[in-house]
């Protein structure tokens, strides 16, 4: 073993034992599986404390600069931490919009002052971030966003509303896409990007209840909200380009994340475990030939995605369509997750009809809740249909 490999192995062991010793006990209430499901104060405080603890121990933002609250070491150390977190199934580091998108964006194109101001709070979970892209009338068609930002002296005055704002009611800052010039010849050129405070007068939020019955996102209203002009990022009219860059982080085509477990990955093994004790025609459902055939198809689908991740690192094996694997990653994972969870419920037989809250629901209704929540990822961050358009146009070169 060379020195670098040994150092990494030692580090892995250190992280593993730290996580083991510090992993919080089951809080006795349902924890979110993704950051899009944080819907109560108790969940929020629990997760905030956990993320703070992980960061204090030096395991978050490993690749970010020391002076910005990071550790200033190679990104591989963060991967080790994240792998161990997944392995030990610890709670998520929920400030994902900050850790995964806003933070990397600020790191990559922000000014030194912006880095000083924002990065540390993201890591420590002191400052929760949200994303104000979608509007009631413009979701997939983001380029038509209408929320106005008008320059007035040293401020911008914001008017309009955003919707589906994940953690909008908890956030201190928003990455905001707003229109500074309604007359611009191309609609995209009239958009600007802001690192906007949510704690000013004129900003209000209304929690929206999800199909699971829980909360997780809000509608966000701006009523003559004044934010300082230096919240503008990258100059007026640069908003679309910056928003697209943000979406690349969000959809996994570009790295740079501060790390941490963003969501609990439910894998096929969890499902198989469940299928061992459900029966159909008086026999374990795992013996049903049709179930087995579908199950094997799902196993193959999950395996193919994992293999694809590896293959994408070997250029000779991607040369037909080099961007295919990274650009279709979100589409494939999220669609797979949705189908797999639906299959799990179907396989439960009559119990598949039960939900969280019923004492007979299998695993407390875990699969039912997970299935309904799985749409968060096939809709959020660009719907599967929009993702398919992107792959068709950018990988296959089909016309718009």
């Amino acid at each position, binding site marked *: 073993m060379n020195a670098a490999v040994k150092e990494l192995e030692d580090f892995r062991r250190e992280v593993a034992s730290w996580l083991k010793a510090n992993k919080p006990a089951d809080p006795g209430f349902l924890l979110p599986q993704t950051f899009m499901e944080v819907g109560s104060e108790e969940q929020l405080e629990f997760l905030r404390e956990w993320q703070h603890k992980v960061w204090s121990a030096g395991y978050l933002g490993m690749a970010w600069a020391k002076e910005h609250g990071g550790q200033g070491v190679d990104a591989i150390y963060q991967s080790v931490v994240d792998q161990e977190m997944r392995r030990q199934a610890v709670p998520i580091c929920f400030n994902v919009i900050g850790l995964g998108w806003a933070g990397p964006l600020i790191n990559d194109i922000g000014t030194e002052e912006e880095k000083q101001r924002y990065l540390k709070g993201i890591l420590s979970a002191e400052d929760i971030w949200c994303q104000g892209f979608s509007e009631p009338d413009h979701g997939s068609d983001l380029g038509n966003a209408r929320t106005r930002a008008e320059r007035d002296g040293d401020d911008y005055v914001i008017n309009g509303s955003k919707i589906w704002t994940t953690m909008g009611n908890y956030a201190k800052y928003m990455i905001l896409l707003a229109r500074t010039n309604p007359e611009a010849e191309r609609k995209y050129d009239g958009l600007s990007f802001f690192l906007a405070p949510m704690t000013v007068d004129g900003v209000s939020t209304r929690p929206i209840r999800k199909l699971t019955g829980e909360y997780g996102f809000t509608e966000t209203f701006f009523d003559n909200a004044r934010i300082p002009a230096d919240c503008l990022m990258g100059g007026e009219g640069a908003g679309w380009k910056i928003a697209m860059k943000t979406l690349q982080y969000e959809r996994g085509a570009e790295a740079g994340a501060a790390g941490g477990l963003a969501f609990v990955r439910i894998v*096929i093994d969890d499902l198989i475990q469940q299928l061992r004790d459900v029966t159909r025609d008086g026999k374990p459902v795992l013996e049903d030939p049709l179930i087995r055939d579908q199950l094997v198809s799902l196993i193959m689908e999950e395996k193919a995605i994992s293999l694809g991740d590896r293959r994408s690192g070997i250029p000779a094996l991607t040369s*037909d369509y080099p961007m295919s694997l990274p650009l279709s990653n979100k589409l494939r994972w999220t669609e797979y997750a949705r189908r797999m969870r639906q299959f799990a419920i179907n396989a439960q037989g009559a119990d598949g009809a039960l939900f969280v809250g019923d004492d007979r629901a299998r695993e407390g209704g875990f699969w039912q809740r997970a299935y309904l929540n799985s749409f968060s990822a096939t809709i959020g961050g660009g719907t599967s249909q929009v993702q398919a358009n992107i792959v068709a146009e950018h990988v296959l070169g089909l*016309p718009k």
Partner: protein
Amino acid sequence: MSVIGSTAMRFDEEQSMLLDYARSFCADRGGLNAAREHLETPLEYSPGVWDEMVAMGWTGIGLPEELGGSGLSIGAAVPVAESLGKALMGTPLLSTLLAAQLLLRADSKAAAEVLEGIAGGDAACVAELESEDWSALPRTTVIDDAGMLQGQKRLVMDATSARWIVVTAVAGADTALAVLDATTLDDDAINPRVLIDNTHRAADITFNGVTPLAVISGASVLAALRDYRLLGALLVAAESTGAAAACLDVTVDYLKTRKQFGKLIGSYQALKHPSVDMLTMMDSARSFVYHASSLLGSEPLDKDQEVACRMAKAQATDALKFAGDRAVQFHGGMGFTWDCDAQLFIRRAQGAQQQFGDAQHHRQRLAALLLDD
């Protein structure tokens, strides 16, 4: 242990060179026009092309150097098979490589002469099937008391071009391999069939008391046959993956040029999104075949390798079937014609599905491997 199992993916310098070379060679000598030239002729390839492949040492892939082979693992045939498929080339190469693997794994000493012949450029094939049930063991083809081969085999791939034929047969209570010199067969022993995949050739063979060059029996035969079937599944999977990629190219080209209602039809999502499905299914197949290729060595196949080969076959032939199916549909009236290249792919797809077991067959075996322990 996760049911997903190994996710190894290795690709070394030698394979990379082979892939580059195979890609450009096949693109140059094969392709849709070349495939069409041979559609209604007895051989689906030009003998000159075969000679060039031999000169590059391709028939020696998977054979040890002392037998005249390349010393590369049979996994190295994956990029070659993929390239052949992409160029829709129908040559006896895969049949030959597989016959060599079967002999090598059963008893390389008894078959040394044949293996050296193969490494030197002789085409070979395996005669196995006796009924429409491809996975059944031989029952009616026997080696009689006089040591002569009697019986009939069906749908033997590349029988017409083979110099050596390896026949599965019953010898006493055992399953045995009879190795034949094709020139010792009766004149009318080989009867070509008409295949749905008109880019490949197969024939039935009748044996009326032929004396084998060698007979191999014993436990190693069953193990070798099992590996042969898995490797066959893998190489057909690789070939199908290449064909699926070519089919996607042909289809996408059409979607970018054909206009209806004043727009390029490629801008319609009813065509766009299934095209993405073609791409992702093909991508999965490529991942599986390269994964399997990374795992293979010269040892008998273990569970991970078996899983990998079966997954590759199930995925790749389904990917090609879907691609061929959509290719016909997306070409409209043109798609229904002989002249449209979509037919080559959908026919290839139906043929490939049946070779070495269809997708459902492999999923059934995978279920046992993955879910029962």
